[in-house]
Structure formats: structure tokens, C-alpha cells
């Protein structure tokens, strides 16, 4: 049981740190960077559930991020809807488009799926880029309003924006945690493991894959909508494939198919990029090879490597215990084994 408390403590400390962070730094630039990192994390979690837990690498993720961003921007600036109404609608629009794309793209597998979604990503990008009358084309959209008031709470300062985004992030992580540690999550993992096997144990793989795809696009859309109202102007490049690659890099470095991976990878890369400001556009000279090396030597990233090490140790311990104790032990061990499952 001790390990649970330890894990809980670590999480509590991290959350606490995130909450007091603005007071520690008092530096608006750092707060800005952290807020942006939180937004990316939400998008990374979306891709993680699909690519990491279900085994389907979608290269259209930035496309859905852009759809969320553009939906919110257009609904607030052109249709002049109430901010939060537009926000909800943006998420619904992204999810519905995700459903439609998923319905067709999920009939393909492996590299066909990756290529298919890459093409979908390009289509979304090109439509945004060329549909001048609606999206403003290459000039993009400006004057996007910041988050609207919720009752007496306003979001006009960087710090208030920081807390808003942090709340969405924590909520996203909670939802992800619960999905992954539920029968639904186990179903997704079974599909990643072997689709044929999943099907023979009675899992409707298409329905489940579609569900993951929609959830994944929902989180991409959520991140996009937050991004648009945080940065206040957007251009077609947020839907370009390089953004998908950025998100993928955060995920792989942190640990694909783990719950802490998106946070670790994003923070690490955003932070290192800040330190390596002089590199700016050339940062991929470092992260590109890291991506490749990780996949070859540490396919589950930082977090996955740690969990694997911990699980092996845990398994050995249980092995020893099981040798001299009988089956009744199992029920007490379950909880700790479950909590070790995916970090």
C-alpha cells in the first residue's frame, strides 16, 4: 500500500506546485509558456489515447486541433456567439467531424491508417488555407476574444488564464485516468495488443476504435479552442503536419501509452526549448534523432521505461510472496497491482 501513498503524494505535490507556480515566478512570460505547455498537453493526451492505448497513429491530429481553434474563432468573431456557447459548439463540431473521419479511416489499418490520416490532415490544412472568404486564408483570423466570464470570474490576466487552462488540463487528466483504468480502457488496450484476439473475445473493435477516435479528436479540439482564445490570433499553419509531429514528439519522449508521459514529454521539451532559445527553428536537430533513438531503444519513453522497471521489481516481489502464501493473498494485492498498471 505504501507505493500508492507515494504515488498519490507525488501527484499532490505536482498539482500543488502547478497551483502556486504563478506566485513563485511572478514572471508573466514564464506563465505564458506554462499555459501554452498545458494546452499542448491536452492535445497530447488525445493522441495518446488513440496511438498509445489503442495502437492507431493518426497524423491528422493537428487538423482537428485547427478545427477546434477555427470553430471557436469563427463562432465568436463572425457569428458573434457567446464565448462559452461557441466553446461548446466548437467541441461538438470537432467531435462530429472526428466521427465522420473515423467512420471511414478506421476501416484501414496500420500504415494505411497513418497515410490516410496524413491525407485528411492535408485536406483540412489546405481547406483552411484556401477558403479565404471563411477562414481568412493565409492571413488567418485576428481579434479572437479571450475566455468569457463565468459568473463573477474573469479571465483577463495571464494568471487567470493560467488557472483556467490548468483546470481544463487537470480535468482532462482525470478523465484519461478514469478511462484507462476502466473496462473501457482495458478494451482499448486489448485492441492495441491484437485486434484479432480482441474480436474473438467478443469486443466490437470498430465501435471501440470509433469511440477512441472521437475522444481523441475531442481533446484535440479542446486544446485548439483554448489555444485560439489564449493566443488571440490563428493562421492555417496550426493545422499543418509539423504541429502533428510536434505533438507526437512530446508524446514519444514522455512515453507513449502511459498516463504521465504527455506531461513529462511536453514539459521537458518546452523547457529545454526555452533553454535552447538560440536553436529555435533548429530544435528538431536534437529532438528528431531523440525520437528515432527512443523508438529503437526505449519505445515507451521516459515514463514507460520507469514503469517497466518498477513493474519488473513488483512482479518479482509478488512472485516471492506467492510462493509461500495462498490464493487469499490475491485480493489484497490487486489494488497495488492495478495502481502500478500504467503509472
Amino acid at each position: 500500500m505504501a507505493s500508492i501513498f507515494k504515488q498519490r503524494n507525488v501527484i499532490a505535490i505536482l498539482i500543488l506546485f502547478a497551483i502556486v507556480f504563478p506566485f513563485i515566478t511572478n514572471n508573466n512570460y514564464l506563465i505564458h509558456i506554462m499555459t501554452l505547455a498545458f494546452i499542448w498537453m491536452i492535445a497530447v493526451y488525445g493522441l495518446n489515447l488513440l496511438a498509445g492505448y489503442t495502437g492507431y497513429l493518426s497524423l491528422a491530429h493537428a487538423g482537428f486541433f485547427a478545427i477546434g481553434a477555427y470553430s471557436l474563432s469563427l463562432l465568436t468573431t463572425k457569428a458573434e456567439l457567446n464565448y462559452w456557447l461557441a466553446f461548446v459548439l466548437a467541441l461538438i463540431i470537432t467531435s462530429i467531424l472526428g466521427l465522420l473521419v473515423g467512420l471511414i479511416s478506421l476501416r484501414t489499418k496500420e500504415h494505411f491508417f497513418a497515410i490516410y490520416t496524413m491525407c485528411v490532415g492535408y485536406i483540412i490544412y489546405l481547406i483552411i488555407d484556401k477558403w479565404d472568404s471563411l477562414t481568412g486564408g493565409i492571413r488567418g483570423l485576428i481579434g479572437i476574444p479571450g475566455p468569457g466570464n463565468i459568473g463573477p470570474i474573469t479571465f483577463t490576466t495571464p494568471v487567470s488564464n493560467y488557472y483556467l487552462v490548468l483546470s481544463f488540463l487537470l480535468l482532462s487528466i482525470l478523465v484519461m485516468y478514469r478511462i484507462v483504468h476502466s473496462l473501457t480502457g482495458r478494451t482499448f488496450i486489448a485492441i492495441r495488443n491484437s485486434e484479432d484476439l480482441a474480436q474473438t473475445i467478443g469486443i466490437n473493435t470498430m465501435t471501440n476504435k470509433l469511440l477512441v477516435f472521437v475522444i481523441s479528436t475531442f481533446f484535440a479540439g479542446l486544446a485548439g479552442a483554448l489555444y485560439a482564445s489564449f493566443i488571440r490570433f490563428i493562421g492555417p499553419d496550426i493545422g499543418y503536419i509539423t504541429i502533428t509531429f510536434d505533438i507526437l514528439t512530446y508524446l514519444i519522449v514522455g512515453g507513449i501509452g502511459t498516463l504521465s508521459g504527455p506531461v513529462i514529454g511536453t514539459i521537458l521539451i518546452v523547457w529545454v526549448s526555452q533553454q535552447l532559445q538560440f536553436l529555435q527553428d533548429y530544435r528538431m536537430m536534437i529532438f528528431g534523432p531523440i525520437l528515432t533513438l527512443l523508438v529503437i531503444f526505449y519505445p515507451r519513453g521516459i515514463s514507460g521505461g520507469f514503469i517497466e522497471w518498477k513493474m519488473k521489481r513488483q512482479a518479482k516481489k509478488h512472485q516471492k510472496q506467492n510462493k509461500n502464501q495462498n490464493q487469499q493473498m490475491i485480493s489484497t494485492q490487486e489494488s497495488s497491482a492495478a495502481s502500478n498498471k500504467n503509472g
Partner: protein
Amino acid sequence: MDVLIQQLFNGLTLGSVYSLVALGLTLVYGILHIPNFAHGALYMVGGYITLTMMTQAGLNYWIAIVVSCVVVGGLAVLMERLVFHPLRHAPAIHDKIAAIGIMLFLEALVQFVWGADYQTMTSPYGQVVNFAGVTLTMQRLLIIVATVVVMALLYFFLKKTFTGATIIAMSQNREGANLVGINTNRVAMLTFLISGALAAIAVSLAAPINLVFPGMGHLVLTKAFVIIILGGMGSIPGAIMGGYILGFTESLGATYISNDYKDLIAFVLLVLILTIKPNGLFPAKGGH
């Protein structure tokens, strides 16, 4: 009518380049069953090497192309050895991510060395000629002719030489090839070499009528994927036919539908194909 003929010529030019890129991609897929997402980056690097050889080293266009083939071919072999070979038993998602990593690295590297600006490559064949009632530059004519020559050489190599035959044998049956004593490692390296050289030739031919920039490989790669899915993953005639079909479709589409949306044609085409046939037009033979 003149417009139509002009566009058919343009389509032929475009299709030639697409075919060469798709050929390299399909050869690699045939041998190793991996979609090489870094192939577009090889194309892009080839463009810069040729350009630099001409402008900095003052080499002749043709010699610059040869240098570019060697460099990019070598880079492709290195990629096979260092990345795809170690990953040959890994889950399918891994080689894609690894290839994307290489691609990101090469793009950043090129941008670091040559900058992000668009550059032009001037070929010695800029003259304008009138041919069968249409106006075209010598360069376009050169693209069309050179592509046919390269394809003929490749055909000769694959069909008439022993080494070429091993590539074909391995793409048809990897285990079988292993059994009859073919050195599969050597064949894989050779295939990557050819694939890289083809990309270098394609970009060197195409760059004078386009521009050279770090992101130039993206669209080409995606379209090459469309082509090999259209023509059957791993199929050589399929890549050639698919390349020309896409070239014609795009140039006609640009004229008669919309110039703005011409790049969409390939993707919409692919989405349509995979929607109707999720395993591609010519799925690998299944059954147990």
C-alpha cells in the same frame, strides 16, 4: 485545344517527377514492407545537394546530379542500417515514428545549413521551344525524356541483371529469398540506395521549374503515398502508372477545376480509394 495539349504536357512533366519519387517508395515498401515517411526528406536533401554543387562548387548540372545521387543514396543506406534494420521486428507504429524523427532532423539540419528561404535552381536548359504547337522549356522536355531513360535503365537492371532479380525475388517472397541464399541485408541496402538515388534524380530534374526549400518534401511524399496506394503498394508498374495518372489529373484539374485546390486532388482521390477499398486498390494476397 491548345490549352488541353499544353496541360497534357504539364501533366506529363509532373507525372514524371511523381513516378520517380513513387518508384523509390514502392521499391522500399516491396522489400521491407515499411512506408518510408522520411522519403520526402531524402528528396528535399537531394535538392539542396544538387543546388549547392552547382552554385558553390561550380559543378556542371549533370555532375551535380551524380553527386546528389551518391549522397542521398548513401544517406538512405545509412537510414536502413541504423534505423529500419534494428526496427524490423518492432510493432508497425515504431518504424513510422522513427522515420518521422529522421525527417524532422533532416529538415532542421537543412534549414540550419542553408536557411529557410526559398531558393531557385537555374538549369542550363532554360530555353523555350515550340513543339507541336505548344510552348515549353527545354527543362520540361528534359524531365520527360530523362525520366523515361531512368525508368528504362531501372527496368533493365531489375529484369536483366542477377542483382536486380534478387530484389524482385525478395519483394515477392522474403522468406523464400532467404531460403535460396539471397543476402537479404544486402538487397535491403541496395534497394534503399536506389530509392535515394531516384529521389535525388527526381528533385534535381524538378527543382529548376519549382523552388528549393526545407518543407518541399512534404507534399511530394504524401502524393507519392497516394500514388503507390493507387498503383498497389510495392508494385513497380503501379508506381509509374499512378504517377502519370496523378500528374495528368492535377494539371487538368488545375485548369478546369481550380488552381487553388489542385493539391487537394491527390488527397481526395486517396480518401475516395481507401473509403471504397480499405486495403488499397491491389491488396496483398491474403488467406491462410
